[in-house]
């Protein structure tokens, strides 16, 4: 842990350490959890809605499935899908933003007005319409969540691209006749990356929350899949009998978003101070 903290500049702060520890713990839980699960997550193991006992540490759900096993399995989908959706969103948003910010042609207004249209639609409404229209499959879900993020990423990237493009090193590259992909990828992208990644954590948590909401509303993953958000939705009917079946997945989602946010904040704060040696007052 300490060795890692030294290597990763962001982890030198207290919040960064806490966030990193929390995130790693959850990742470990998600990775190893299914191996430790005492029961098959979709098998009916006992009577429905039992309290916590030695046999079922977190009780059972409305169908009599073991809540602990479902919790141990249920992080994979939500974390995997939100990471996937967020990465896709960054790839698409950054490409659009770089292109729109650098070009002075008609492409810029075309791309950006399209982004504005997307931005005007409330995310959940968009996802609901998408799920209804295109079916409730995982690819549609991921693409939908990614699309929600693309406009705001594109706008941020475009703004910093416009700023970076005025620098001498970009002009030097233009003067030596570099092609567009090299200009954008080599000269501009590395310099806007800091700004762009500063909010990666917030976006990841936003993806988690959107996915959780969609799953909760029953428009995302379908039962009998084990998923934290889905579990909250399934088990809220039995909350009076076995409250742990709702509380455990809810707490885990909260823990996950808080840890990721702490890491993201620490990363963002460490970015500006990377290699720049601060000069002392003259």
């Amino acid at each position, binding site marked *: 842990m300490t060795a890692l903290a030294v290597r990763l500049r962001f982890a030198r702060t207290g919040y960064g350490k806490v966030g990193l520890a929390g995130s790693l713990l959850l990742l470990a839980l998600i990775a190893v959890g299914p191996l430790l699960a005492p029961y098959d997550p979709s098998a009916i193991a006992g009577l429905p809605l039992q309290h916590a006992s030695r046999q079922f540490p977190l009780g059972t759900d409305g169908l009599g499935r073991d809540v602990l096993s479902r919790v141990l399995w249920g992080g994979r989908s939500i974390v995997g899908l939100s990471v996937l959706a967020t990465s896709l969103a960054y790839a698409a948003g950054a490409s659009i933003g770089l292109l729109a910010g650098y070009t002075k042609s008609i492409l810029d207004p075309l791309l950006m007005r399209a982004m504005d249209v997307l931005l005007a639609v409330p995310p959940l409404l968009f996802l609901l319409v998408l799920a209804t229209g295109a079916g409730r499959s995982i690819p549609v879900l991921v693409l939908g969540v990614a699309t929600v993020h693309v406009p705001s990423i594109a706008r941020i990237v475009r703004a910093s691209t416009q700023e970076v493009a005025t*620098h*001498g*090193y970009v*002009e*030097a*590259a*233009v*003067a*030596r*006749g*570099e092609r567009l992909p090299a200009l954008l990828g*080599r*000269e501009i992208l*590395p*310099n806007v*990356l800091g700004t762009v990644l500063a909010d990666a954590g917030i976006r990841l948590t936003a993806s988690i929350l959107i996915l959780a909401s969609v799953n909760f509303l029953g428009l995302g993953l379908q039962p009998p899949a084990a998923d934290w958000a889905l579990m909250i939705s399934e088990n809220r009917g039995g909350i009076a009998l076995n409250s742990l079946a709702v509380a455990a997945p809810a707490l885990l989602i909260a823990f996950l978003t808080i840890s990721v946010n702490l890491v993201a904040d620490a990363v963002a704060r460490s970015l500006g101070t*990377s*290699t*720049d*040696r601060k*000069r*002392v*007052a*003259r």
Partner: protein
Amino acid sequence: MNEHALAVDDLRIELVSGEPVVEDVSFRVGHGEVLGLVGESGSGKTTTALALLGYARPGVRIANGTIDVAGTRISGLSEAQVRRYRGRLISYVPQDPAAALNPSVRVGDQVGNMLERSSEKEAHVDDAFELVQLPTARDFRRRFPHQLSGGQQQRVAIAAALVCKPAVVLMDEPTTGLDVVTQANLLAQVRRLQRELGFAIVYVSHDLAVVASIADRIVVMYAGRVVEDGPAARVLSEPQHPYSLGLIASVPDPREPRVLRSIPGVAVGVGERPPGCPFAPRCPQRIAACEESDPRLERTGGDRLVRCLEWRRTPTLAPEWRAPSGALPSRPASLLAVEELRAEHRGRGDAVVACSGVSFAIAQGECVALVGESGSGKTTIARCVAGLHAPARGRVLLDGAALAPLAAGRTPDARRRIQIVFQNPYDSLNPRHRVAQSIARPAQALRGYSRKAAEHAVADLLERVRLPARLATRFPGELSGGERQRVAVARALAADPDLIVCDEITSALDVSVQAAVLELLADLRAELGLALLLITHDLGVVSSVADRVLVLDQGVVCEQGAVRSLLASPEHAYTQRLVAAAPTLSVR
């Protein structure tokens, strides 16, 4: 009344960690005297100046020493106490008026805010505006800073400094960013005010030529210490400290086409000062004792002080004149020709003409300078030549063949042969690329080198620009301004060009660093037969480097000719004004 307007004794300013920034600084300023506090970046001159206001920047503290202004001790007072004296006893004119004036407060109020509430406030502000020759109309006082020109903004700052009639005015490079003519006017005005009102001035600057035109007395600082202190004329004509000598030898002078001599090595930063004399590593006359103990400031007679064990051995100032760049007509046909160039900037509304009807030619190995004030269109011409701006009319020819307006349309060979080095070394290198990557890229892109061959070439190129090979793995953020500009030159050289366009490449650098970069350019011309198109506002630079010069006034060439004759006897009224206003070391 007290003997001195300002007395500083044994001042020591250190970082919170205890590392000294300024140490053992003592000097006196008499009533009505102008003291020039000269030093380069990192010499501690601004830190010292701020300390005179009883102020230390965050992270820095005044550890020791006394400061007396007109007999009042202002050191060791609390912030609340010292505030009572600021403005009244000692006031401050900051470096950049555009940043120092509050953009959302009317200029009249900015000056008035210096005064306590009084019925005569208006009248005092009026007087202050009149003093600095600003219009006193109510309408003018109600303007916001952005509605004034740079020179006017600086006058507002000076008016604010003078309105309380202080005994000492601190001026921290008040003319940086101003055009030479504006600068000369402002200096003349400051001098006049100072004579009329009799206040003392501490004028902080890295520019010896400007200081020479205003100061009675000069204090030279190096690595946080005073190294020389004496009457201005004597210090400038017969410096006793080897650093002062080096500094003077590196100032280009429009009236004397001297060969510039830079000081070897680089200035030491805070925290890397060697034991003993901090200048010893760069000093041509050091002896063993220099590296052991820091010499004391020694009185050398005639009201002069110097901090050097071997000051008697400091050579006399012996300017070396540039060999006249004769044989111009015998040069081969022109390498680059610009014909009837007209360039415009298109904003939302009408196009603004940057330059028009500009024609000139550069021969192989020749150095042509384009001189003008800001807004004269010189940078736009440079960008047209480099293919970064499409001219509205006219052509750029290379070896007699017309070039496409934009770099993307030019042949790789044409792009290779014309390289550009930009003004600001802090943004001309990609901060995310290592030095080696930055330098290797043009060789790969324009000369078809393999990655390996290009990386191999990097070491040679670094050596060519006199940089150690170990810098190859650094990021630009880890380099000084001078080092970055050398890397930018190396990047241009990597393409094996015939012509390098130098757009104000030394304007962001200290004088001694500027001298080193100009020296490098001169050497490269001699070694490689490079032609240079030098864009500058500094006639001194022109005089020490260029063969021919074109003077631009609002986008039109108003005079051109061989450097020496043009600077010696300018004919156009604009050129005459420029030459007259250019600061020079030749004593006023």
